[in-house]
């Protein structure tokens, strides 16, 4: 494994990093989105959880490979929480993959009003050398 970098998701500097979450962020740094899979009952989670919601067993991280999704819902945030004030307006979207898994992230390249049902593609972003994100592209 690469040398431990300080990595944060999205625009936050959430310091509550665990080894499991660190592994997720390191994969993200390589443009890989990880899901988690329960080692006992094989239930999958996106975003990943260290503990299975069903049987509370440990999960392991595995790469999530779906890339195409549909816009499940969206919001254009004009008045943002203080920590993101400088980024507003921004678009938060829930995308739904063909498998039914969903993911919440920003849409970063919109040129017109989003529409529920429109196609989205998963992308990755290095906001700066510490902050990483997955994002939606239209």
């Amino acid at each position: 494994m690469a040398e431990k970098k300080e990595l944060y998701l999205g625009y936050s500097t959430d310091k509550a990093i665990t080894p499991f979450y660190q592994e997720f962020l390191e994969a993200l740094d390589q443009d890989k989105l990880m899901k988690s899979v329960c080692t006992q009952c094989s239930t999958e989670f996106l975003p990943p959880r260290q503990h299975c919601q069903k049987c509370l067993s440990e999960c392991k991280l595995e790469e999530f490979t779906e890339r195409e999704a549909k816009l499940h819902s969206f919001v254009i945030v004009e008045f943002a929480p203080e920590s993101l004030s400088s980024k507003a307006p921004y678009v938060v979207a829930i995308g739904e993959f063909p498998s039914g898994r969903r993911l919440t992230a920003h849409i970063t390249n919109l040129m017109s009003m989003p529409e529920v049902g429109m196609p989205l593609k998963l992308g990755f972003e290095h906001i700066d050398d510490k902050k990483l994100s997955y994002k939606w592209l239209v």
Partner: protein
Amino acid sequence: MARKVAVVAGGHSKFGKRYDATMRELCAEAYKPIYDEGITQDKIDASVLSYAASQFTGQGAGSALIADYIGLHEKPHLRVESACTTGTASLRAAWGMVAAGLYDVMLVLGVEQMNRVSSATATEYMSQAGDMRWEYPFGISFPAFYALMASKYMAEYNMSHDTLAQISVKSHHYGAQNPKAHLPKEVSFEEANNAVPICRPLNLYDCSLITDGAAAVVIAAEDRVKEFTDRPMWIRGIGAGASEMMIQDRPSLTSIPGAKRASKAAFEMAGLGPEDMNMVQVHDCFTIAELIAYEDIGIVEPGKGPEFVENKEMYHDGRMPVNIDGGLKSKGHPLGATGISMTYEIMKQMRGEAENQSRQIKDVKYGLAHNVGQSGQFVNVFIFERGF
């Protein structure tokens, strides 16, 4: 068999930007009318403080501070926290203690002081009720969670923003007649429909207010009720429900599963249905939340909310009066006080004492309070029955 429990008294502070008070003074303001009715400290066995967000004040151990401030420091107290449903969660906790026989008489006091920080900071604190790992990093404010529901509802049922603006107009119409309201002014449809966007598709007039305020009720066990009032309001049904933490994981965004579960449970316990209610207080933290509430409670079928609004059936003389006190939209939404304020309003309406008689609902026998926390992770529904 649990003992029957009634609400026997209530008090309510002025809601607003209360730079003349902090949480302790607001609590005193809410308890004072109860004290004046003769329910002095010695008659109260214990208290529950409904106080949702200590980030706003920095005050820890809130129930100790408040109990002391209002002279209840020798009586047991505790604090409950469940985001915006803290008020009815507190009432539910207190009901349990009284029904079980632990105490006979309890004060349930709800408060929030939110305006000593900027709106951006307040929005920041509230966004921290989202999942700190997976939602918060994307800046999903409270209005944003509900805007996600609004976008979906509009797409699924082909609804325009007009419906939401009509709800806001109604709320302000009644808030303007409520002396306790934070923003007691009428708003025109055009103003409400074209206001500055906050989290599109929601604009300023879709949002509840950032409010300072307090509300209090006293509950008592059935065999003690007569000592306090000849106009009790019985707690007839209580339902509580819950939903997924992350909004993306909800099976649907056009209804709140926990609210449906809570409503169903409350009606079952009461042996009543939505059609039996004479008024409802719903958690309209955003106009879309009010619309969805009509459907989750079962006042109308899914997708029929807009028609109900169009026909003005939620006005005080309509089929089902909803938030005739102005609701969270115009009366205001001091998080911890909100559920208690709903309870207070139903009690006043049942007694024929609506503050400002122009908005008195005729002959209220049954009333319902629907109180939602966060974007639906917690929901409490109470059904109250006039006992006189």
